[in-house]
């Protein structure tokens, strides 16, 4: 008897999926991890392949990530070529449940109203352009309704018996999201028309949601490091138009942004773009609380920011 228990314990240690019957989900980002947990609740076990303080364009696939995909029933990814690094992991994991087209494959971008879809020829002369459109769609919190619908569909395909629970969890999430959207709209009322310079072209969805005007980027083109001539031109344009706020994600090099801020007198705000992007950013809603607070503070500091 004792021997049987030991064998069972060893089996559970070696094959942890057998220890509990939860649906196992791998998400490529911490935001998708958080949103999947919101929909899946207690019935899912979610692991993110990246951390919130990473540039999601630049995640290095590692063998330990392969194992998260190997044991997953569902993969939730941003799609739109942002998490292309996940493709080699999917191939290495040899898990038929999460390959493209399988029931466990969830592209969270499906159904999103995409912005900045390139027209005409796209090549590297334009920088790191995403051919399907700007992929930073989770930065409009209203898009979480579409994202969670995709997640819900994927979870139901993986675990149909929990459909009612998943649907109820999502309804609860949508109600909370609705309340937060109203709160954020009020908070962002003073930001309407704010001219904002960002490091990377990642805030178009956020800007559209909250009425912020994107003035320019520290990067001359997506993914291209700033050159002195580009920064000089940007400084001159910012001075001319009275742009007084620069926003950059936590992981980008701060040097160029800081120099521009010093030369223009603009306020530089460093913000998270994902869950875990800064200590204390533990949930998806925290990201927007933090970003809006920083912008409102910056506008408060520079009263003539608009």
């Amino acid at each position, binding site marked *: 008897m004792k021997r049987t228990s030991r064998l069972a314990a060893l089996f559970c240690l070696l094959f942890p999926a057998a220890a509990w019957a939860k649906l196992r989900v791998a998400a490529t980002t911490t935001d998708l991890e958080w949103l999947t947990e919101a929909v899946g609740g207690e019935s899912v076990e979610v692991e993110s392949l990246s951390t919130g303080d990473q540039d999601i364009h630049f995640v290095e696939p590692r063998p330990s990530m392969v194992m998260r995909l190997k044991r997953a029933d569902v993969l939730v990814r941003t799609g739109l070529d942002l998490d292309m690094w996940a493709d080699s992991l999917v*191939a*290495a994991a*040899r898990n038929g449940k999460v390959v493209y087209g399988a029931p466990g494959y969830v592209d969270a971008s499906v159904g999103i109203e995409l912005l900045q879809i390139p027209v005409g020829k796209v090549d590297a002369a334009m920088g790191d352009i995403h051919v399907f459109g700007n992929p930073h769609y989770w930065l409009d919190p209203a898009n979480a309704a579409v994202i969670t619908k995709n997640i819900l569909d994927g979870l139901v395909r993986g675990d149909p018996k929990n459909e009612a629970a998943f649907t109820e969890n999502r309804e609860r999430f949508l109600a909370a999201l609705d309340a937060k959207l109203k709160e954020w709209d009020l908070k962002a009322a003073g930001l309407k028309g704010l001219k904002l310079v960002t490091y990377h072209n990642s805030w178009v969805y956020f800007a559209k949601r909250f009425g912020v005007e994107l003035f320019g980027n520290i990067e001359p083109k997506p993914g291209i*490091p700033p050159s002195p001539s580009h920064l000089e031109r940007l400084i001159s344009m910012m001075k001319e138009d009275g742009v007084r706020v620069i926003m950059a994600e936590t992981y980008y090099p701060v040097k160029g942004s800081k120099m521009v801020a010093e030369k223009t007198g603009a306020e530089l705000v460093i913000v998270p773009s994902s869950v875990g992007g800064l200590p204390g950013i533990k949930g998806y809603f925290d990201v927007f609380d933090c970003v809006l607070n920083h912008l409102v503070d910056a506008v408060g500091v520079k009263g003539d920011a608009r």
Partner: protein
Amino acid sequence: MEAAAPPQGMRGRPLNLPDISIIGVVDGHLTDDRSDAYRDRLEFREVELALQGFIYPQMRADVFLALHKHEDEYDAEICEAKAGFLRLAEGLSAEVGKIHVNFGKLNKMHTHHRPMIDQPQALTGFFGDHGLIGQGGTASYLFPLPFYLQAEGGVWRAPAHHHHAEGAAEVADLSGNTVNAAVYEESEEFSMSGELFTGRLKASFAPTAKSELEIGTSLAAGHGSHYTHHKDKAMVSAVDLTFRVWPSSYAKWTLQNEWLHLSRKVPPGNLERDGFYSYLSYRFDKHLDLGGRFDYAEGAWPVRSFERSFSAIAGYHLTETSAVRLQYKVRGMDDKTVHEGWLQLAFGLGPHSHELE
């Protein structure tokens, strides 16, 4: 219902076209070794055309055609051409075709994808300039464990070298006894050829969320490339250890080590030869990395020879497939010291991808 955008390798499906990409490599090489006839040149070294895509669900093809500079000529060759069965059974996959054998850390990587311009001498000494490339098949199994453990085995046929006998002579074997043996002109390159069997076992652990420790062991057993003359059976065994740490989003420390041991059985006796390299690098940001590599390699020949070298390597990465690299290397050989330098520009056009390394 709206469909998800397909991942790379499946883009061409509506037109039934594969992903098409090109990698070009321009090399400049300076050396104070006056015996090197190809020193002090800046030239186009290689262009690789890749055609990649799915041919069936769970089955893909990757074809890499290359034009390489060999001495003063450009030779066309199939660098790799393989069909991959991604999931034959739970955890089991296989590949057939002409393949860079999964042996150690560097052998499988195409040269333009490596973090250094030259190949460590231990690999060149035991596998030749192009590394261990075989025609055959391989199967790998990913164990269902909480950590990464993959076993792989392959059966191959590799091309033989051709050279001429120069007659027979009384020679001393490794025990000091005099034996009569054929004496052949040795080519400058030893490699393995004919029928080969390879195996690799690789484990990987993540001690922290921002680090990864990989340990691997590899084996290649078969014949030397001069088997028809030397009747040499050869076996290369290897151990590799790689530790990577990501202190921030872009910064990365890499410590990579490979040790190889060659056992070559020739009629006069057994040759036991070793080689290893140790590579340490630091990536400062998305673009710049600096590193150093120490090499020690013994020659695969009966007369014992060795080479020690140290390289300093800098890389500036424009994109995932385009980079500028600089390398300085000082080589201490049996009877001389050589200083070498390289400048390399590698550029990529199109969606080029390699499997997880």
